């Protein structure tokens, strides 16, 4: 992974090195249709945070404003840019964008574009405009929401590549004195067939920089793609097989010391007292600190620090949360739901008259579902390395929002944003967890307090017990069917709503009367985005209840969903594909079952069919068929890997995942009591992709997750007649 370095940027800059650097300006009055949705309403010109650099060695550098946590963003985004640019893939390099701030004046924008330099003329117009709005619209450097390819890639990387190509062509046409229309490009070369001229892009880089930036660069139609749609090998993989890939935890700073930490078990409590008598005398121990909300031991090595920490006896202040255990929490959910009754709570969506339709329904279906808190359990435990000295602060970590991390570090250090240098590394799993700043703040506080460069590493126990959890939830449904078994009403009330807002809604199902409500229930635990966020709960709730309605209607689950999706061509194509792949109509052996689930999320449409073997002591998921429409899949192998990955992440939660509370504290601590799916439990996964709309792309990292839990529980029902309404499955006996 290339790293941002000022010197490299300046050295290769337009002014100094004769290389071409392109950012894309889009004039609000003349945007391409593709760019319209992200343009802010502000005046002037705006800067897209997508960049490409043509080096004098003809290397094309794609500057990627997202982080790599295994989702393949670096490769897919570079593919999009390189394809539009007709770049030679073998000579494309990837650089992660630096951490810059979205809340400061556009002087920072200038700093981003050309630090310590006069801004090159081609870029000048881009700086003046609404940098802030664009940054926010583009989600600069926030990697999440399955956004990278469908947002940044589709709207910015492609445009940057196309613009760069057009400028190079214009420069060559001018130099050769031929019409632009006679010039072709391929493999980072400009060609003129009539004269037989052929030169590398680099030759025209400086001249291209003199060209005005095209206001509306022409993007390729899919039949012209040479890289997009191809399963190109990920560029980050080689470093991940020989041990050379650096993750946050691998930061090496001269003279650094190691910190082990233990936070108050109940979030919100403080450390009132601690007995560190034994720890003080242990080898390697340098400092023992009561940081208020956590205890830390700083030592020459991490193991020494952790061993010493384990001997410290701390007492904590009491909090409101102390009394809460799991049963009380779900009882609280029930109380709030009961209080909301048939009409209370906050209405999220409403259409028709649910009460009337339900009252008149021939068949009434009711059900209640529950899911627990979940931890992220990234393989790389939370960590951060920080050094505060001479009014400056350096921070090393792997974070989903380098910008957010830099801001948090500045606040924790009590320094200005400009005085903090943030160094991002590969993320050993993100899944939402690495969008939080708690680890950054703690390490900076420790570095400030101790004066050492500090590498703080959380034990797995700390990582499990101090997460920002996927919220637990209870969800209640009432559904009405007419005498022919058609769905006429859908009513849902559930606890909590986090993000995205549409997660509990079912606009794709044709049900004339529907109403969806929520009640907010206070809890002391910290919540955070967890792969697919609210779709992870609501996918299970919705697709379980649809299945229950199908059963009540005396219909097959696939056929019932077909009726609900009538008229939605892309939706039906995906549902049909999954059914076809699985041989839906073929009988299963005794004790085996098939279940289907359909969840559109993050712009992608996904159906899954799970095959479950219920003949043993516990459910065994044998095979999962996935049909996916993400508009246009840029890297089919990378997308398939995301489907496989999301299924395992979701299946782990379905089978085992539960974070529970006792006396306000999380009870689980490590992989023995928060178990993970392992290779011997891995189902076969088969993926088919339908490219349904090349103009509007869907996400890849998250949408594969929501359907797996209901596909499995629906399969269990098909095999056994037993309906699972609470996850994880380990809570249910199938004896």
């Amino acid at each position, binding site marked *: 992974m290339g790293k941002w370095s000022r010197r490299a940027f300046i050295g290769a800059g337009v002014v100094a090195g004769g290389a071409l650097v392109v950012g894309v300006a889009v004039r609000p009055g003349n945007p391409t249709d593709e760019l319209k949705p992200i343009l802010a309403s502000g005046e002037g010109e705006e800067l897209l945070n997508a960049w490409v650099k043509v080096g004098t060695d003809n290397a094309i550098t794609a500057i990627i404003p997202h982080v790599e946590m295994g989702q393949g963003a670096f490769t897919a985004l570079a593919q999009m840019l390189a394809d539009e640019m007709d770049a030679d893939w073998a000579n494309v390099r990837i650089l992660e964008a630096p951490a810059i701030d979205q809340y400061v004046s556009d002087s920072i924008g200038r700093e981003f574009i050309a630090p310590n330099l006069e801004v090159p003329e081609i870029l000048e117009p881009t700086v003046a405009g609404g940098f802030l709005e664009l940054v926010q619209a583009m989600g600069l450097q926030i990697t999440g929401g399955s956004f990278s390819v469908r947002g940044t890639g589709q709207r910015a990387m492609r445009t940057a590549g196309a613009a760069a190509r057009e400028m190079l062509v214009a420069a060559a046409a001018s130099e050769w004195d031929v019409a632009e229309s006679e010039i072709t490009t391929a493999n980072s070369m400009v060609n003129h067939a009539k004269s037989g001229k052929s030169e590398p892009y680099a030759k025209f880089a400086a001249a291209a920089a003199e060209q005005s930036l095209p206001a509306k660069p022409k993007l390729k139609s899919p039949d012209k793609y040479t890289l997009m749609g191809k399963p190109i090998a990920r560029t980050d993989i080689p470093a991940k097989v*020989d*041990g050379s890939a650096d993750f946050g935890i691998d930061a090496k700073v001269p003279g650094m010391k190691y910190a082990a930490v233990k936070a108050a078990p109940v979030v919100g409590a403080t450390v009132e007292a601690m007995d560190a008598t034994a720890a003080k005398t242990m080898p390697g121990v340098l400092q023992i600190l009561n940081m208020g909300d956590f205890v830390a031991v700083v030592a020459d090595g991490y193991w020494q620090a952790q061993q010493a920490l384990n001997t410290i006896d701390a007492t904590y202040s009491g909090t409101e949360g102390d009394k809460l255990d799991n049963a009380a929490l779900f009882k609280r959910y029930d109380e709030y739901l009961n209080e909301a009754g048939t009409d209370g709570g906050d209405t999220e969506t409403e259409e028709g008259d649910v009460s009337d339709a339900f009252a008149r329904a021939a068949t009434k279906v009711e059900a209640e579902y529950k899911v627990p808190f979940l931890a992220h359990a990234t393989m790389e435990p939370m960590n951060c390395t920080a050094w505060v000295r001479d009014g400056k602060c350096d921070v090393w970590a792997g974070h989903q929002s380098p910008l957010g991390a830099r801001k948090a570090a500045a606040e924790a250090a009590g320094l200005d944003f400009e005085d903090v240098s943030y160094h991002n590394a590969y993320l050993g799993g993100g899944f939402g967890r690495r969008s939080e700043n708690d680890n950054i703040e703690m390490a900076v506080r420790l570095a400030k307090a101790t004066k050492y460069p500090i590498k703080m590493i959380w034990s797995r126990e700390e990582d499990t017990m101090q997460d920002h959890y996927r919220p637990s939830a209870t969800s209640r449904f009432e559904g009405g069917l007419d005498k022919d078994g058609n769905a006429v009403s859908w009513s849902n009330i559930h606890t909590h709503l986090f993000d995205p807002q549409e997660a509990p809604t079912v606009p794709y199902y044709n049900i004339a009367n529907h109403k969806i409500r929520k009640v907010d229930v206070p809890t002391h635990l910290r919540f955070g985005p967890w792969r697919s966020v609210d779709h992870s709960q609501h996918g299970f709730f919705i697709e379980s209840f649809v299945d229950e309605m199908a059963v009540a209607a005396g219909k097959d689950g696939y056929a019932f969903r077909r009726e609900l999706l009538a008229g939605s061509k892309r939706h039906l194509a995906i549902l049909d594909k999954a059914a076809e792949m699985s041989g839906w109509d073929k009988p299963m052996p005794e004790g085996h079952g098939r279940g289907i689930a359909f969840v559109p999320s993050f712009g992608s449409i996904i159906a899954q069919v799970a095959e479950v073997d219920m003949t043993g002591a516990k459910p065994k998921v044998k095979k999962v068929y996935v049909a996916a429409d993400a508009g246009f899949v840029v890297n089919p192998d990378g997308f398939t890997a995301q489907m496989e990955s*999301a299924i395992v992440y979701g299946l782990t939660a379905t089978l085992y995942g539960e974070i529970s509370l006792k006396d306000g504290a999380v009870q689980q601590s490590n992989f023995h009591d928060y178990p993970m799916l392992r290779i011997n439990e891995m189902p076969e996964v088969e993926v088919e992709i339908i490219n349904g709309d090349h103009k509007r792309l869907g996400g890849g990292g998250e949408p594969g997750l929501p359907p797996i839990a209901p596909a499995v529980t629906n399969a269990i029902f098909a095999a056994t007649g037993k309906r699972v309404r609470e996850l994880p499955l380990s809570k249910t006996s199938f004896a």
Partner: protein
Amino acid sequence: MIKLNVNGQTKEVDVDPATPILWVVRENLEMTGTKFGCGIAQCGACTVHLDGKPVRSCSTPISQADGKAITTVEGLAAEDGTLSKVQQAWIDAQVPQCGYCQSGQIMSATALLKNNPQPTDEQINSAMAGNVCRCGMYGRIRSAIKIAAGMEQPATETGSESTKVEA
């Protein structure tokens, strides 16, 4: 001072003999390819070889490495940088996502194939079930092991042969 043989090189470290191999390798020897995952031998991210046998380095004191050869992921490739068969297969099958567990996965797979050049699915399961991959790349790990064993051919283009794309 404890004298060690790490990836064929002799090293001396001044540490408490109870220190787990993991932290000696990562901190004293500054070889960070071996990863910390759980600290209780539950996830396999820290797997290294002691005399060719896979051990969980987070839970194995450095004293047990006395007189034995430690091999880490950094020691698998040939001196000229040529990757081992297992490492190359890991690229061919596009196994890693975040990549954090993969050093341990590769060390476990290397040990498996050394003793059992043509493992069955069951044998792969039992050798690899101690290694957690949170990105869920188990299907690809199985494929890569078979590619390294010569039991499967790598796909001509990268990745899963089960993927079909319709326009």
